[in-house]
């Protein structure tokens, strides 16, 4: 590790001095505008040929503003209000949630590769959800999100246990995560292949690859509620997360109750991941890629990083999902496939960068 290679790896830092990168609320405001614009445009795009003005008048009518949407058939009204809008909003919620989970996990575990998908949490949540859907585990008392949450917590516990007994270093966490991801994916496939009929299998697999196709308003409300709750918890810990920059001991010496903080934040991210997986399946790499991009804009302070991460993740997934449902229309590509296609090269880039900065 030489200072020259450090400097070379930080492109924004010519001669190691960084120009002001902080416009305190600038990025948050820009993110809100971008998100509103993205949602407004994305709902007008789709295989059904509905005019832009009609789409907006339908939405305005449902929101109780505007002159109403006369001349728009009930089917088209349904397409906009019951399919496109909840789907677009759920994409925003999922993108926001996954990006926040990634940012928090990366700081907490001090690992630039941490993300709910890489750490196997998403796979665990999928397994839990599939057990409920296909095998009826819980006998109706357990909802799909409930099953997903238990699965997410189990896989997270497994990853923590494995990485701890393997030495607890940052690369061990990722290796343990990969192991958990493989295990739970295999379990899921096993359950699906042995217990489900062909119809269920197709539906479940599509959903496991990550798809927003089944989005309804209830998913949007649940997801939003959990997102707001978890984001609030994480923002309340923003300063504490900053303290982890130099590791757990340094955080403890700065007055952080490390064990308690880890428990609270790991549970919060597991809860959010579970809620998202339960409605949209395991969408990978959003949580891995977005935080790195956003950190280079806002700097590492979490009070600024987390809100901008949420907004950037939301905008990103709204567009990726729009791409996924239009590129092969009327066929649909699972959104998780698209995020992985974008995410894998980005993953390699992150690995490459950390190799150079070590």
């Amino acid at each position, binding site marked *: 590790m030489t200072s020259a290679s450090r400097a070379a790896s930080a492109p924004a830092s010519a001669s190691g001095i*960084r120009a002001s990168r902080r416009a305190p609320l600038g990025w948050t405001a820009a993110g809100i505008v971008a998100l509103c614009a993205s949602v407004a445009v994305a709902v007008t795009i789709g295989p059904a040929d509905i005019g832009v003005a009609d789409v907006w008048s339908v939405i305005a009518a449902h929101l109780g503003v505007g002159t109403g949407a006369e001349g728009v058939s009930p089917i088209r009204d349904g397409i906009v209000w019951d399919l496109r809008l909840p789907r677009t909003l759920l994409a925003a919620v999922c993108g926001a949630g996954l990006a926040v989970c990634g940012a928090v996990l990366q700081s907490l575990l001090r690992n630039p590769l941490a993300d709910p998908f890489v750490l196997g949490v998403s796979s665990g949540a999928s397994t839990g959800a599939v057990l409920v859907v296909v095998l009826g585990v819980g006998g109706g008392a357990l909802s799909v999100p409930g099953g997903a949450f238990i699965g997410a917590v189990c896989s997270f516990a497994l990853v923590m246990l494995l990485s701890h007994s393997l030495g607890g270093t940052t690369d061990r966490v990722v290796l343990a995560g990969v192991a958990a991801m493989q295990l739970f994916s295999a379990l899921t496939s096993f359950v699906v292949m042995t217990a489900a009929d062909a119809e269920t299998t197709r539906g479940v697999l599509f959903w496991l690859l990550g798809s927003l196709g089944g989005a309804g308003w209830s998913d949007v409300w649940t997801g939003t509620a959990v997102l707001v709750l978890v984001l609030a918890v994480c923002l309340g810990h923003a300063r504490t997360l900053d303290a982890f920059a130099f590791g757990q001991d340094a955080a403890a010496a700065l007055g952080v109750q490390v064990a308690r903080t880890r428990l609270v934040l790991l549970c919060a991210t597991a809860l959010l991941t579970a809620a998202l997986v339960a409605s949209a399946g395991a969408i990978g790499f959003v949580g891995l890629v977005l935080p790195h991009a956003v950190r280079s804009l806002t700097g590492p302070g979490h009070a600024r990083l987390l809100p901008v991460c949420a907004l950037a993740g939301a905008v990103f997934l709204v567009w990726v999902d729009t791409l996924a449902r239009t590129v092969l229309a009327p066929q649909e590509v699972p959104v998780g496939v698209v995020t992985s296609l974008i995410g894998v090269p980005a993953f390699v880039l992150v690995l490459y960068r950390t190799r150079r900065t070590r």
Partner: protein
Amino acid sequence: MTLNAERVSRAAGGRLVLDGVDLSPRTGAMTGLLGPNGSGKTTLLRLLAGVLAPASGLVTLDGRPLHRVGRRDVARRVAVVEQQTDTQLELTVRDVVRLGRIPHRRAWTPASAADDAVVTDALERTGLTGQADRLWHTLSGGERQRVQIARALAQEPRELLLDEPTNHLDIQHQLDVLSLVAALPVTSVVALHDLNLAAMYCDHLVVLAEGRVVARGEPAEVLTTDLVAKVYRVDAEITSAGPAGRPHVRFLGTLPG
């Protein structure tokens, strides 16, 4: 009143790392912790910082048991500079120094003007004002130690604990870091390897061997040929040729056994 350790013990891997150690640093003075690798210096510092709890014995801050004081309150009084630290984040010098304000800030509130003033002051006292916007990754080892000391100062501590702060530094930066610490108006406890540096800068020395205190006192009392032979298995000649008549250790070779 300051930090105090009474008969503290701590085991690791079935071995006693610290075995009934007392330590009462004098308020405002610089206490040097000496001893070979594995003698328990780092563990003792971690106990004093409250990051680790003693298996038996008691660490107190102003007479109150440290575990009753609360982590945040401890961090407002006691700052720690670790041996070697690194981060994966792209932090500027100012970002790192700002971390020192964390124990003083509340959740949901941004840093206040008072916080910024303390950070600016810490940068100035450590001579880093002109480097505030440089990235951590581009700093040399000595500069990083300086930044960590500035971060510790931003905590506004009355006690400062340093674990071999001169490791991996060239000689100029070793002297530089220690004279900086010696000039601070805080009670400091510094683990050191270099006997001559300890003799030059510390007001008081405590020597550990196998988890026990084997000598304590002023540098001239503690650093003797016998002690160096016993603790380090090294033959040495000790004169008062150091700066201001401080002891100077000249090593002659290792001893058998």
